[in-house]
């Protein structure tokens, strides 16, 4: 059943990349919803398809990639059915992106304010200079940038400031949803903390929803409301961040949470390596089984469905079975 607050609903999204040796199913049947005013974290190792899944949502996938199937419902409409012009209008206005490596995606030959003005004027036409300037200043204040950067070029700003400039640009047209792809990964902890604070503040003040891609579980714990875990093109678990940390339901989530190093206890590291399959030739059954410490015969036979094992905690793993009362319990192996 659809949650009334759902703003974006992704259903069975498939995005494949064509390669000479066959398709890479980089996003293979991914479903999730995003609620109004929440930050949904998306974690997974490099190459697990986080950017591809959100690229499917934003429709920024170019050749050799293609959206194979699925629906992406934003504000009640399936945007995968939009024509290019309609999609162009939707981007920035409803759905915006802080791309991976955003700080390097700024145009080095234009001032920060000109780049923001460009986004505004492309969608809303020419604006009176004074109003435009005031609007950009407001954006700067929102993200905690000083006015003096108005006429500065990207190279004159520190990494954290560039990152906040990208956030300013992403909120320029008051979107419903912002996808932040590794928005703080290249930054130091102190600057990262400041940028994360900025995102939390924007979320509170503007009630926008974020999909925040990352791989730092510590940061996720600090920032997101719900967390989705991806592995090799598939979503394995999605739950409120507290539940995920308190009782991860999927073996991979469990490993991810166990292996977060802490500053409070020096302990032997848990090693889980296993084999990573060739993405063009994924294993049968469960996508994680080659690395799973609990794999059973059934795991190579069928792909586990996403089921709700606790309220609002969905997981795709054969370990979870219905008992006689109809509630899910995890088998011990």
């Amino acid at each position, binding site marked *: 059943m659809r949650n009334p607050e759902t703003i974006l609903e992704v259903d069975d999204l498939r995005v494949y990349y064509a390669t000479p040796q066959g398709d890479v199913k980089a996003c293979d049947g991914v479903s999730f919803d995003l609620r109004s005013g929440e930050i949904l974290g998306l*974690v*997974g*190792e*490099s*190459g697990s398809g986080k950017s591809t899944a959100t690229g499917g949502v934003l429709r920024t996938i170019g050749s050799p990639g293609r959206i194979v199937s699925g629906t992406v419902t934003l504000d009640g409409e399936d945007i995968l059915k939009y024509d290019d012009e309609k999609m162009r209008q939707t981007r920035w206005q409803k759905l915006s992106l802080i791309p991976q490596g955003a700080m390097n995606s700024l145009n080095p030959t234009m001032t920060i304010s000109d780049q923001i003005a460009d986004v505004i004027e492309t969608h809303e036409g020419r604006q009176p200079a004074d109003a435009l300037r005031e609007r950009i200043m407001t954006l700067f204040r929102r993200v*905690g940038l*000083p006015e*003096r950067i108005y006429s500065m070029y990207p190279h004159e700003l*520190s*990494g*954290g400031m560039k990152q906040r400039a990208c956030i300013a640009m992403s909120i320029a047209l008051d979107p419903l949803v912002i996808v932040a792809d590794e928005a703080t990964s*290249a*930054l*130091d*902890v*102190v*600057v*990262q*903390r*400041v940028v*994360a*604070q900025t995102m939390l503040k924007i979320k509170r003040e503007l009630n926008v929803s974020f999909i925040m891609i990352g*791989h*730092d*579980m*510590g*940061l996720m*714990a*600090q*920032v997101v409301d719900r967390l989705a875990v991806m592995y090799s093109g598939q979503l394995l678990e999605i739950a409120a*961040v*507290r539940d995920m*940390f308190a009782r991860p339901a999927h073996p*991979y989530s469990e*490993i*991810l*949470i166990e*292996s*977060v*190093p*802490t*500053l409070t206890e*020096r*302990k032997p*590291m*848990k*090693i*889980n*390596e*296993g*084999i*990573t*399959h*060739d*993405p063009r030739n994924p294993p049968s059954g469960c996508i994680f089984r080659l690395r799973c410490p609990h794999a059973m015969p059934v795991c190579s036979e069928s792909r586990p469905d996403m089921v709700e094992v606790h309220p609002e905690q969905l997981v795709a793993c054969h370990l979870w079975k219905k008992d006689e009362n109809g509630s899910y319990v995890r088998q011990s192996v």
Partner: protein
Amino acid sequence: MSDNLFEIRNVSKIYGPEDTGLVALSEYSFSIPKEPAKIITIAGESGSGKSTLGELLLRSSPPTRGEILFEGVDIWKFNDQQKRDYHRHVQAVFQDPFGVYNPFYRIRHVFDMVLKNYRLASNATQGRELTEEALNAVGLRGDDVLEKYPHQLSGGQRQRIMIARATMLKPKFIVADEPVSMVDASLRASILDVMMKLRDDFGISFLYVTHDLSTAYQIGDQILLLYQGTVAEHGNAVDVITQPKHPYVQLLIDSVPKPDPDNPWPGEIELPAEEALRTPSAKGCRFCPRCPQRMPRCETESPERYDVGPDGHQAACFLYENGPMPSKTKESMSVDESNEHV
């Protein structure tokens, strides 16, 4: 012969003109003993000079001032033979394990190239044995990985293969610059574990360059925390991380996001408006503009490193001028707790 593998004496590295350029490393002295092998972590924010030290040790560029001795000899006064030896004894492993691989070659190629370039083996069988040995040292088997393409391996495996490649040259020292920052937490452990194993079983010391304090805490023997080219704090990794003394290091450790949704960051912070103070002429403690405990003299004098604990635990901060207990900062400028300006 010297008992030290490395001796770094008063080294400064300045990019650009000496008087106005950017000081990446300032007046730095440190020695790394031959034995026992150690993992020395060097941490700090980007631009703090941590990679610069790695580059200096790799002989990629000369220091602006000071000297670096390797086994007692200045690395910039090497003859050709010494240079060749050095490039075998001091190896590097970098951040992006994928970028250094050619996607069209099988993993075998990485090893074949080293064998060929350094003429390590007289025939193919011997070459295969050396490769196998190196792979085993990092917990891999040739049959499992050599015929694979880079994308078929996990990030952790790719990085361990780069370390295996480095160990084929029987190095004494490896500079590992952010070797785990591209792999996810579940794979990180295997790489760090290999570093500890090479230290313990093969006597290889590491300079582990990272901005991630939690891994430094897990594996580091010693740690050096840099702030804008100067050492803010130095000591045993466990001491420094569990009992940080320098206000910058305290802020840093407070900012490491805790993997616990119920334990949020304490308060909000702001960055300073100006990021100045990076030229050699700048007076005073470099952290002064951001320091919540700054005193008037911090603006004009540079603190030396003072002892703050056992085993060489030192911090460059006037608070410790009179010993390990911070002096009362009656003159310190107070800051609003909820919005400390750092």
